[in-house]
């Protein structure tokens, strides 16, 4: 789960990780007021669920409150496009007004899951403010990697090694050690999949500061952090994906015109692959899950149909506990209520297959049934071509 920079910084503060003074704003007037409170000069930062804002004009310095107002006015409501957002970009609804910071040095610090060792690992580099992936590729020796044993946690002596690697000495070294220990504590207590400070800076005045903050929460742990639900900014998410989430459906919108409904994530990915192989363009990824009920199937179908780009639907349900007649009922319910005339191809395998097929063929819908995956994909692509 994603959160904004300003929210991440609030959490950093709560864990004694120093951040610049700042205030979140929802309107240009609020921005102007915040700028005044900051003493006039400030940085106006668009809050979106993606990085790369700087080059897209999403982070701008204002020299006085009226200028801050103008910058904000132009940003609010704008769709900011960065290399991380995709071509449609993300809408700017919130902005962070921050005191200007004069960094003398920039560093990189993060803690994330290392899948190879199944442990959290800390990455640190004196190359801050740049793309860490690039540093990892070009100059890997500039990155310090520390795999953390969950039995001991991150020990102070290990944090010291990191701080010394980064070139800190004296009291700044102690400050860095404390920051690192706090960051790990945050990562565990808040159930994060990623915490990242890029850049971590030393200001000209000699203080450590997290100039940017990124936190991703582990989706699987949200059940024990109910307050996270209130932190979500729905303006940053696709409305269909939000809807699907409410019904516990795994849905991702894509660009094509063939809607897909599959049971199982791996099979769903493979279904997209085979559609593409047969010359089709999938409109979405949707995993309806193993124990789906008729309601869930109906809801899944409705969500697929809500995508105006969908011109045909491919259902691939294989050998689960799900009864095929129940699946058929769910599809018929949703498709009929919308008066759906789109070509539908259903491939089902499991219990009550013949009953399910019978129901579909008698439903009056523009549906064809098939037993095989490849055949089904070819069929839906062909039906679509014939309609055109």
């Amino acid at each position, binding site marked *: 789960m994603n959160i904004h920079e300003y929210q991440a910084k609030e959490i950093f503060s709560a864990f004694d990780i120093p951040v610049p003074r700042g205030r979140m704003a929802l309107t240009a007037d609020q921005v102007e007021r915040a700028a005044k409170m900051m003493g006039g000069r400030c940085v106006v930062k668009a809050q979106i669920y993606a990085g790369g804002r700087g080059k897209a004009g999403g982070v701008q310095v204002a020299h006085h409150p009226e200028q801050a107002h103008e910058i904000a006015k132009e940003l609010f409501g704008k769709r900011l496009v960065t290399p991380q957002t995709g071509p449609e970009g993300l809408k700017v609804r919130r902005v962070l007004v921050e005191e200007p910071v004069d960094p003398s040095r920039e560093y990189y610090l993060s803690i994330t*899951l290392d899948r190879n060792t199944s442990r959290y690992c800390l990455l640190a580099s004196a190359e801050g403010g740049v793309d860490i992936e690039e540093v990892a590729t070009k100059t890997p020796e500039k990155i310090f990697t520390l795999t953390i044993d969950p039995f001991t946690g991150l020990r102070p002596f290990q944090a010291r090694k990191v701080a010394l690697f980064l070139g800190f000495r004296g009291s700044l070294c102690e400050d860095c050690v404390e920051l690192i220990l706090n960051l790990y504590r945050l990562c565990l207590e808040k159930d994060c999949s990623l915490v990242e400070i890029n850049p971590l800076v030393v200001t000209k005045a000699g203080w450590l500061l997290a100039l940017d903050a990124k936190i991703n929460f*582990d989706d699987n742990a949200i059940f024990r952090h109910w307050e996270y639900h209130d932190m979500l900014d729905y303006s940053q998410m696709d409305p269909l994906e939000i809807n699907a989430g409410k019904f516990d459906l795994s849905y*991702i919108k*894509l660009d094509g015109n063939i809607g897909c409904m599959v049971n199982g994530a*791996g*099979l769903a990915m493979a279904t997209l692959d085979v559609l593409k192989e047969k010359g089709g363009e999938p409109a979405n990824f949707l995993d309806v899950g193993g124990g789906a009920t008729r309601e869930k199937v109906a809801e899944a179908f409705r969500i697929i149909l809500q995508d105006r780009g969908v011109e045909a639907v491919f259902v691939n349900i294989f*050998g689960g506990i799900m009864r095929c007649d129940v699946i058929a009922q769910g599809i018929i319910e949703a498709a009929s209520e919308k008066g759906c005339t789109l070509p539908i191809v259903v491939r089902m395998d499991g219990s009550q297959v013949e009953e399910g097929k019978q129901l579909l063929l008698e439903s009056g819908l523009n549906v064809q049934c098939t037993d095989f995956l490849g055949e089904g994909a070819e069929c839906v692509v062909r039906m679509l071509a014939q309609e055109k």
Partner: protein
Amino acid sequence: MSILINKNSRVIVQGITGKAGMFHAKQCREYGTQVVAGVTPGKGGIHVEGIPVFDTMEEAVRITKADVSMIFVPPPGAADAILEAANAGIDVAVCITEGVPIRDMVMAKRVINDSKTLLIGPNCPGVITPGEAKVGIMPGYIHKKGKIGVVSRSGTLTYEAVKQLTDLGLGQSTCVGIGGDPIIGMKFIDVLKMFNDDPKTEGVFMIGEIGGGAEEEAAAWIKANMKKPVAAFIAGVTAPPGKRMGHAGAIITGGKGRAEDKIATLTEAGVNVSLSPTRMGEAMAEVMKK
């Protein structure tokens, strides 16, 4: 015999009194598995469908001499259930549960690494040795006893592959669903090693997907050590980067974990990778002929 489970395995179902636990305990027993006990804290002393339920794994293992556990405990308690199984001396723990927090699995894996317990999963369909025993949620009817070992990160995509193999007359020795999470017990490489040493397995089919580096790790090992033919399919060639495709572990991050890269690495290691999910069985048949 094959690997991990067989007709002699004595299975405990942790979370047996829940809907999923109860349903699948019965299904596994119907398949022929020896389901000897269930564990649900607080429900010790009752019987469900004739299966005795205990409060703790320690007691259940002591009394029934069980050696395998199938875990249906919901996410908040799943990692603890894994630890309890390991503590009770279970040989193979199969955790079906999807949604176990990262922090919990980091700790569970750490404990498992130091114990004799083999963990499969979490977020997996389980393990089946066709004709002998099923410890999981897969449909028994698509499987056929034979010589192909199957190892997969997926559930239903595995069933698709197994059906294709069965239809071609290529039965399976053991099918292992290792799960779709970023932190799991046995990885591809661990299962491949077992298949390599198993006299009943003559070929292996691997099903991978985007995210992580497990397929690449396996490829390196296959190149250096594998004595038997391997075929594979990798799902997610069409997956957009940065999006979690259903499984917690199925995500391309920072350009890493792409299907194309896994396909290339496996091919380079001598694995026959099918480029279509419709020709998985065929890919296996091709290399079995040689």
